[in-house]
């Protein structure tokens, strides 16, 4: 009896020791490389994708992107749109809660949207919400904040009135600028509402700690309405701006995901890591702008000829190792609402035929061999890849037209400041990444009224008129047709020469499941899981 008791208690003791030494459940942690230090975690101040990845894990907008990059309901479970397309009524989820357990209300959204448009907030992406009635006027200090077209009808009903029908409005609502803040938290904590220990968020995760340039840790938000389906317990974002360093940390198995790495590593990494290397075409265009206010770039034939003579396949394959795709239209493919873009007609020709045609056009214009000498300066922002592209293009123009090509590079701030302020140039590199998945976002760059982004000073009343018509058009198909017509003009006139459609490069460890490549480059951690 005594010995049995002894044995029993010994067994119980051993059991409890064993139980204590092994954690009941291993924590599911995703180590997420994030290509740089976020400049802010304030939805009114954010402007870059590495912030969006974090913010969209922390907060949930009215609409969100699913794993495949498709718009689905987020904090709003449903919505209705009025006949005239200007009034959206959102029904918020009954069980949508902030991480402190308080309900997410329509008043929070009303407060958040007004905060973004308040000129005192100085929000970088205030223009994302400009389709909302009076937003632009308020942001420019020409109207009262109270007049913004947003209204909390009751705690769970949020109504937005737009200036005009905006077919891509649900996309805009998924932008990180449209994420809600907790009215109570911002009113109480002011600018400190973004800090760990203070932040109250309504997304699948909540902020735990943030050491700049080291790590940003978020853990599962048990108060999130869909917490049962969030498989990760913790996500650690590593803000590594050095691409080579993040690849090394992936190779040392310290990272599960790496966003962006040097294209010249693709082949080596594919050899070593096979399908863990993802090259995903994205809604971004790499282009060269011609200064249409300068001779000879005011001559459409010169622009066409120069554009045609660029061998885009070479750029994509040799310089970007297949990480970018040759582009013949400013609007990238993969835009669901737009379909196939209106490409330049020379896209169908072989490169040799393009060069022949380019020579003819250049001759007609009176430049190049036998004509006036062609001296071209290519400006680009300092970056090894941009330099290689410029060198290759310079070589193509030298070979085709016997042109004298020089190159000038400035750091990114100076380069864009120069173009933005209307500086004179010959040819300049630029890039555009979609703010929302709609062709208008790219085409509007070339409106004559667009003083900032229209670097080449393109001025075509016909183009402007088509764009204006598209803004008033409510029928999606008719609108898409108008936009295609407008793009056809760009493709003909080549105020800019689209060169490449960019791709996002990701390393996705075999540990990770739930990953789907998508052109919107949206990858919420709540749809991912990890295995040991």
């Amino acid at each position, binding site marked *: 009896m005594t010995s049995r008791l002894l044995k029993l208690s010994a067994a119980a003791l051993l059991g409890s020791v064993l139980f204590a030494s092994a954690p009941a459940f291993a924590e599911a942690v995703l180590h997420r490389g994030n290509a740089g230090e976020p400049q802010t975690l304030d939805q009114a101040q954010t402007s870059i994708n590495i912030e969006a990845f974090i913010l969209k894990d922390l907060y949930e907008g009215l609409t969100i992107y699913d794993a495949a990059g498709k718009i689905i309901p987020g904090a709003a479970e449903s919505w209705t749109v009025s006949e005239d397309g200007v009034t959206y009524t959102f029904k918020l989820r009954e069980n949508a809660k902030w991480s402190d357990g308080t309900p997410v209300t329509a008043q929070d959204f009303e407060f958040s949207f007004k905060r973004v448009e308040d000129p005192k907030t100085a*929000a970088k992406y205030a223009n994302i919400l400009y389709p909302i009635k009076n937003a632009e006027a308020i942001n420019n200090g020409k109207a009262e904040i109270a007049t913004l077209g947003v209204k909390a009808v009751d705690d769970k009903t949020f109504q937005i009135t737009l200036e005009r029908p905006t077919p891509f409005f649900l996309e805009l609502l998924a932008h990180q600028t449209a994420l809600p803040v907790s009215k109570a938290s911002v009113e109480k904590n002011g600018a400190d509402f973004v800090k760990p220990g203070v932040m109250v968020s309504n997304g699948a995760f909540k902020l735990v700690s943030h050491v700049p*340039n080291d790590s940003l840790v978020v853990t599962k938000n048990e108060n999130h309405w869909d917490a049962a389906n969030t498989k990760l317990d913790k996500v650690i974002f590593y803000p590594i701006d050095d691409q080579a360093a993040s690849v090394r*940390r992936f190779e*040392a198995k310290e990272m599960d995901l790496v966003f962006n790495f040097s294209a010249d590593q693709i082949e080596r990494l594919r050899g070593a890591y096979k399908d863990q290397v993802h090259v995903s075409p994205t809604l971004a265009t790499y282009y060269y702008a011609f200064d249409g206010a300068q001779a000879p770039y005011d001559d459409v034939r010169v622009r066409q000829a120069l554009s045609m003579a660029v061998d885009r396949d070479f750029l994509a394959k040799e310089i970007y190792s297949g990480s970018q795709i040759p582009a013949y239209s400013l609007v990238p493919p993969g835009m669901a609402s737009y379909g196939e873009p209106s490409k330049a007609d020379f896209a169908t020709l072989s490169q040799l035929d393009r060069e022949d045609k380019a020579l003819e056009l250049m001759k007609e214009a009176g430049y190049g061999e036998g004509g006036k000498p062609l001296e071209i300066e290519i400006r680009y922002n300092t970056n090894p890849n941009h330099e290689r592209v410029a060198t290759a293009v310079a070589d193509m123009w030298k070979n085709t037209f016997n042109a004298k090509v020089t190159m000038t590079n400035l750091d990114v701030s100076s380069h864009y400041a120069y173009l933005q302020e209307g500086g004179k140039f010959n040819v300049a590199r630029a890039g555009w990444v979609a703010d929302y998945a709609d062709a208008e976002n790219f085409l509007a760059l070339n409106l004559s009224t667009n003083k900032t982004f229209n670097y080449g000073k393109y001025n075509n009343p016909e183009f402007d008129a088509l764009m204006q018509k598209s803004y008033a058009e409510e029928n999606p198909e008719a609108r898409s047709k108008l936009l295609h017509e407008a793009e056809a003009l760009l493709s003909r006139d080549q105020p800019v020469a689209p060169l490449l459609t960019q791709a996002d490069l990701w390393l996705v460890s075999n540990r990770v499941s739930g990953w789907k490549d998508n052109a919107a480059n949206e990858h919420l951690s709540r749809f991912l899981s990890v295995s040991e």
Partner: protein
Amino acid sequence: MLAFVLRRLASAVPTLFIVVTISFFLMRFAPGGPFNLERPLPPATMENIMRTYQLDQPLWRQYVTYISNAVQGDFGPSYIYKDNTVAELIGKGLPYSMELGFFALLLALVGGVTLGTIAALRQNSVLDFSIMSLATVGTTIPNFVVGPVLTLIFAIVFSLLPAGGWGDGSFRYLLLPMIALALPQLAVFARLTRGSMIEALHADHIRTARAYGLPPRIVVITHAMRGALLPVVSYLAPCAAALMTGSAVVETIFTIPGIGRYFVLGALNRDYTLVMGTVVLIAIFVIVFNLVVDLIYGLLDPRVRHD
């Protein structure tokens, strides 16, 4: 000596003032600004931002505001890392840089002086040539090569050490960045020590000490070393200031959350306040270390004692 220290600290004030003034205007003369991005902002938005950060005011007024705030210890908000003030960013990052820099300095100093002394004692031997060749290699191979090579060997191939990050701050995480940071300085210390040690060993008082029959170890360590260390000590000040204010290259390669990158990133992003903050910090480090070194100098060399 106290008077000397106080005098030196007092003379640091105008130095700092000049440094701050020059860097303030140099930064502003660079084209572009903190809010000229690859994606330019709409003019109205830009106006809101410029007003918020008082960048729309005349330059002289911005300068006066900056100086009067800085005197009160307020170095302003970072224009780029908006959730933080410059003081917060530097306060968070500096301990990492200083810890890493301190260990790297220790390694460089102890390793360099030891190797340099050995080389000097075995002048023109195979050992001397090997050490000096290594030192040449150490100074010529940049740490952006050494760093990745170390990671490749120790983290990726053999999986012995982490490839980067600060982790829990244990020595495992420090080792590789410390070596990468120390190596070029270690080589400099070795060369300096060797040269001055050879010179010291030929000095009259060393010959006398030897003639007295003192053991060689005593001759080298107590008598020769003292003179030989003078050039090493004068190099110590800029070296310590450089190592302890963080290296942009090493911190970037090993993803260390120090302040080394802020100077470079701040300058590239036109984050005026952040650059000014790091400039002031580096200037203070240089001034303080120079002072410390001058005091050490006095201890080693009676001729320059500060009474």
